[in-house]
């Protein structure tokens, strides 16, 4: 009984998070400007991290925790680098 409840709710949560990732990808493809794409990418990272946490709950191991942590940190570094590029990349210094 409890296995079924938890299993189904994990599936529902994963579907919702995948839809959220789809929204972020749509914004990433649609743009219209570079900063819109970057914010889509950043949201995509955060949603992917949450999806990994739900995968970890389903498998019952804490292995996915490290993966989620790494994705979160890499997403942060990537977004900061891209934002910095927006400030500097198009302007001749």
């Amino acid at each position: 009984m409890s296995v079924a409840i938890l299993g189904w709710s994990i599936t529902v949560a994963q579907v919702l998070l995948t839809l959220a990732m789809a929204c972020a990808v749509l914004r990433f493809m649609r743009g219209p400007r570079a900063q819109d794409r970057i914010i889509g990418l950043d949201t995509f990272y955060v949603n992917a991290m949450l999806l990994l946490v739900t995968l970890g709950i389903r498998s019952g191991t804490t292995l996915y925790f490290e993966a989620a942590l790494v994705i979160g940190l890499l997403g942060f570094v990537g977004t900061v680098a891209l934002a910095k590029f927006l400030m500097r990349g198009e302007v001749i210094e």
Partner: protein
Amino acid sequence: MNAPDLPLWAAILVSFFLIAGALVTLLGSIGLWRLPDFYARLHAPSLGATLGTGFILIGSMICFSVLQGRPLVHEVLIGLFVTITTPVTLMLLASASLYRDRVEGNDAAPKKDPAPTEL
């Protein structure tokens, strides 16, 4: 549908937190799609980064603490990193975008900073 075998109360609690968190995150991402301009869209991801992440991590904490029979709260680290890093990225993006809009002379950003509101 495989899932860890938790007591019924824990399963219901974890399910509630997971679905609530996923719903809030989805709401934030829908906002990213629906809001009209870039500066308004800046507000959408912080929904998923605060309440969405918080709910899902609380669910994960309850699940693993019950499963292993001892308090397991290492998910706090993810929450801490996300809370500290999201403001940095959003602030950088906001200032980069303001700078670009002003250089290009777009209407999206005000030409001058608005005068401070006094009470």
